[in-house]
């Protein structure tokens, strides 16, 4: 018979830890070789014991499970990590996988699906419990019509000062007026303006104003009021 797969549990809830330990140990293929109640202790154990798999909670007292996953993968990039969390929202699941997790289970599914989750992730597969996979697929199905907006990206790159100048430019103020208002020289305003236009990838003031409307900086209908 193969050697038992060695599993590390990191969860701050002792009773819950005990519960899943029992589930895991009831299967002769697996053994729990360590338990930790926080991330730093978990990391230490992971480095020392070199487990075959880690079961990790997201809400931990010291750092978040997301950070823990990343830290853990830095030292042992090959270890499969199965997240077992109270959070059932799709954003948590996405973030866990982004951090490098191999599987995601909500805690209430542990009874029915923990063993399957362990099996799959140990094989190198990704695993998601059915209650969350529905949400994830729905989210994925929505994605095509939600195209990433280039304008937003450009605007996100502006500094606070550039935002300030952009609002004034878009509302039709001259460089001189903006300079007076912000106590800077008109030359500096011009510099800001060309940098803004570069970042937003526009070549004239009309397009800049159009962007400002799309972003919600100004509203042409309310202009006169």
């Amino acid at each position, binding site marked *: 018979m193969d050697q038992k797969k060695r599993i590390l549990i990191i969860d701050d809830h002792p009773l819950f830890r005990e*519960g*899943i330990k029992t589930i895991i140990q009831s299967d002769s293929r697996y053994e729990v070789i360590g338990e930790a109640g926080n991330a730093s202790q978990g990391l230490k154990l992971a480095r020392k014991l070199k487990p075959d798999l880690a079961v990790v909670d997201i809400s931990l007292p010291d750092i978040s499970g997301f950070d823990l996953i990343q830290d853990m993968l830095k030292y042992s990039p090959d270890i499969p990590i199965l997240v077992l969390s109270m959070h059932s929202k799709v*954003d948590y699941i996405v973030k866990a996988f982004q951090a490098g997790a191999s599987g995601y289970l909500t*805690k209430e599914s542990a009874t029915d699906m923990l063993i399957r989750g362990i099996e799959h992730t140990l094989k190198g597969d990704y695993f998601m419990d059915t209650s969350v996979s529905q949400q994830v697929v729905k989210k994925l199905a929505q994605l095509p019509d939600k195209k990433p907006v280039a304008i937003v990206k450009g605007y996100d790159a502006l500094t*606070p000062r550039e935002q300030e100048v952009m609002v004034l430019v878009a509302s039709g103020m001259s460089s001189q007026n903006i300079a007076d208002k912000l106590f800077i020289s008109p030359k500096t305003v011009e510099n800001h303006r060309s940098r803004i236009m570069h970042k937003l990838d526009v070549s004239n003031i009309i397009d800049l104003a159009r962007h400002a409307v799309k*972003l919600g900086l100004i509203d042409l209908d*309310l202009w006169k009021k």
Partner: protein
Amino acid sequence: MTKKPSYDQLEKRIKQLEQEAKKLKQIKNRLIEAYEIIERSPAVAFLWKNLEGWPVEFVSENVMELFGYSADDFVSGRVLYTKVVHPDDLKRVAGEVANFSIGKGQKRFTHEPYRIVTKDGKIKWIVDRTYIRRDENGKITHYQGIVLDITKRKQADELVRDLSQMLMQAQERERQMISCELHDSIAQDLSTLKLYCNRLFEDQSSPESDIKGSPADVSKLIDLTITTVRDLAYNLRPPSLDHMGLVHALEVFCEEFTENNDIMVDFQAAGIHESTLNSDTQINIYRLVTEGLNNIRKHAAASEAMIRLVGAYPNIILRIEDNGKGFDVKERERSIGNEKKMGLRSMKERVNLLQGQMSIHSQLNKGTKIVIKLPLKDKQKWIKKSVF
């Protein structure tokens, strides 16, 4: 050489003079009365020349109490009025004077409250009602003003706002605590309970016939309870707000709102640097959006809503718009206290506490637009410093 006046003429003249003197005395008495009233009142009367620096031509003696400078300090020109107006407010005050001086018909105006710096460096808030005095050609020669100390009122306003703010923060803290407790503790315990329950049933080799089939029921019930607790926690305060940030939490809220109601929400955020927003601002923006959308759901009969959150340093602009049935803004304002208006009112309250501005634009059958502008910097900081 003039002819000597006759006795009669002299007597007539004397009588005339006596009468004039009597009149003058009356006028003088009235002037003294009026002056004393001013002197004893908290109002300071100013007469400024319409010249650079607003030199003071006349000011009532009680200026001493409010400004710490004597009337002579001003009238002699040793102290210019522009020097006592708080430097941060001077531009605005001057702007108000300039604006109100444009219209020929304009006779009087009231400044927004502004600050002055007294002789010993204290900062006081005043209201200033000004009357514009013109010559026969309509040219402004003077401004005459009544200036009142409202520092105490400002302090009281400030106190009320501080208390309301604290109340709101306390409520948020409480919600966060309960939400966290529900989610991380109670829901967690329930999950653990479920784990043990299942094992308990498994271990029972020969369950009594009447509890047969109940493991699945118990399990289902616990699942249901977990869902309820989790939803409750989420509604109190979404954990994602603390873990994922404002924009992300709003995205999720809008998506779920779209899913659960027949209202398509188009959410977009740009230029929001979350690290620069304190958690107070974040939770308040989150609440404003959820309140706004809930209002739309309850009252607007809209099929679409649009949320725009955009950083416009030194402000954040939040737009909440819908294509619903709209309303008459003025009429709505009159019917204050109206049930239906509560949603908007609590939003306005929140915006006021954050020292932002909120404007509502709506027309019957043409949807509603709410524009909220929140300051990123705490503009009130210096007031606290100076007043307390």
